[in-house]
């Protein structure tokens, strides 16, 4: 019998760390030079920096960070239309268009040449293969195929890997569930929120995904997935659920292997750095929570150099039993943009998800709202509970949720029940934190 191959690329994935870093530094220098020569934005931004002077990771850390606002400003009103000063290739070489969701402002437009897009897809092959996707899988994508990058990469990577890809784009949720059952899909790609939503809809249809469907593996993207949410998905679907890290600007850049302990950075295609949250510049060691900074080392259409992801993460320093030598990260604490100081306490909305998904299976959906009463900030958690719960049970549950949140965050929450179906459902990025104090 043919031996099962463990890695997408055994040479790269088991390369000694020193060699990985060497390659990353070489690619960093090449990318920097390419950017200075071809992108007006980087030519100006990195004026005076000599790529050949960058010999160590410490040297890299002296190169200025790139912020999302800068990318936006480099495009608005600049030629060539849409991409402006960021573009580093002739426009006629472009073949793929994507854009960011614009959640934090005007969208950033990210095009790719055929070559850079195939590189994005290649990186996703590492992610999918690491999560155990194989040519024997029939992969269903319940994803709205549109301008957002989301699962486009997953689609093409699954195809390249040899899986049979079933595009479930133009269907509503019930039809998607029926189609998955009909084709006996074994793999699935969705946001964590939509994975949970499909469980809810399947239940309404009298379908138990664990019993009636054949999904064996699921890969999630689009939003942070705290461990309790991942476990809830595994339980509901009876499948192995894997997380990945990525975005429109860098593409997918890390994925969970079958050990499910942190996410492997796809090195040496990416260089990950961690910086201190307070100074937003000082490098921090493994085991310390900080902010992730990423460089996409081989994407030339719109280079991304030392991009501040504004995601709080922590690098692990224990070796992974899977044998991969790449750095592993855990997402801890959500987005820097969502971090609030409330009554002197740092609050991250992702903690609410950890508590709710980890301890309250009766809660179907929730959202956190920050308001202001006079000078006092008020946190309200709106919860939608299982319709079968009596009011007395709901009342007791609200009390327990309030206590658990108090213990975890040191903040007092107002807890409100919402009628079934009263809270929004999301197919792509969820927005469960609303800050009404923001002008």
């Amino acid at each position, binding site marked *: 019998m043919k031996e099962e191959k463990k890695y997408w690329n055994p*040479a*790269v994935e088991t390369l000694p760390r020193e060699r990985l870093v060497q*390659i990353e530094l*070489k690619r960093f220098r090449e990318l920097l030079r390419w950017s200075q020569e071809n992108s007006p934005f980087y030519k100006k931004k990195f004026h005076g920096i000599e790529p050949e002077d960058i010999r160590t990771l410490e040297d890299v850390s002296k190169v200025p960070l790139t912020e999302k606002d800068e990318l936006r400003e480099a495009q608005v009103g600049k030629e060539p239309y849409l991409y402006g000063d960021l573009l580093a290739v002739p426009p006629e070489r472009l073949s793929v268009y994507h854009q960011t969701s614009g959640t934090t402002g005007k969208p950033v437009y990210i095009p790719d040449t055929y*070559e850079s897009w*195939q*590189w994005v897809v*290649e990186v996703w092959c590492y992610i999918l293969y690491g999560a155990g996707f194989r040519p024997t899988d029939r992969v269903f994508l319940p994803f709205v195929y549109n301008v957002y990058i989301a699962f486009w990469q997953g689609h093409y990577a699954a195809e390249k890997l040899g899986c049979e890809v079933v595009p479930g784009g133009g269907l509503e949720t019930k039809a998607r569930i029926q189609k998955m059952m009909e084709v006996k899909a074994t793999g699935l790609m969705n946001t964590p929120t939509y994975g949970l939503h499909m469980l809810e809809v399947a239940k309404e249809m009298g379908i138990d995904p664990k019993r009636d469907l054949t999904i064996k593996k699921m890969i999630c993207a689009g939003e942070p997935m705290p461990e309790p949410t991942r476990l809830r998905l595994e339980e509901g679907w009876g499948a192995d659920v894997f997380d990945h890290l990525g975005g429109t600007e860098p593409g997918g850049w890390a994925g969970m292997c079958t050990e499910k302990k942190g996410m492997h950075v796809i090195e040496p295609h990416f260089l990950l750095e961690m910086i201190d949250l307070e100074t937003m510049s000082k490098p921090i060691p493994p085991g310390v929570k900080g902010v992730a900074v990423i460089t996409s080392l081989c994407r030339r259409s719109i280079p991304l150099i030392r991009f501040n992801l504004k995601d709080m993460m922590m690098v692990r320093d224990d070796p992974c039993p899977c044998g991969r030598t790449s750095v592993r990260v855990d997402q801890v604490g959500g987005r820097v943009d969502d971090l609030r100081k409330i009554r002197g306490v740092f609050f991250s909305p992702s903690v609410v998800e950890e508590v709710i998904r980890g301890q309250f299976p009766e809660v179907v959906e929730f959202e956190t709202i920050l308001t202001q009463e006079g000078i006092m900030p008020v946190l309200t958690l709106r919860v939608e509970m299982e319709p079968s719960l009596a009011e007395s049970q709901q009342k007791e549950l609200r009390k327990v949720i309030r206590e658990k949140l108090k213990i975890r965050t040191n903040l007092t929450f107002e807890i409100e029940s919402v009628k079934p179906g009263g809270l929004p459902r999301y197919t792509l990025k969820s927005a469960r934190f609303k800050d009404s104090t923001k002008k």
Partner: protein
Amino acid sequence: MEYDLKAMDLEIKAIEERTKKLKELGKEFVAVERNADSILTFVYLLKRNISDLVE
């Protein structure tokens, strides 16, 4: 695991050379030029995956 990165690298370079030659020969044929470009894209990925590891 047994593999020979240097031998793979040589083959990748040979494919690159031959594809460039094909592209030149077929420059009047869009079908040849564009398909040759596609091959060169995957050569680029093979170089990132293999050739860059050869010291």
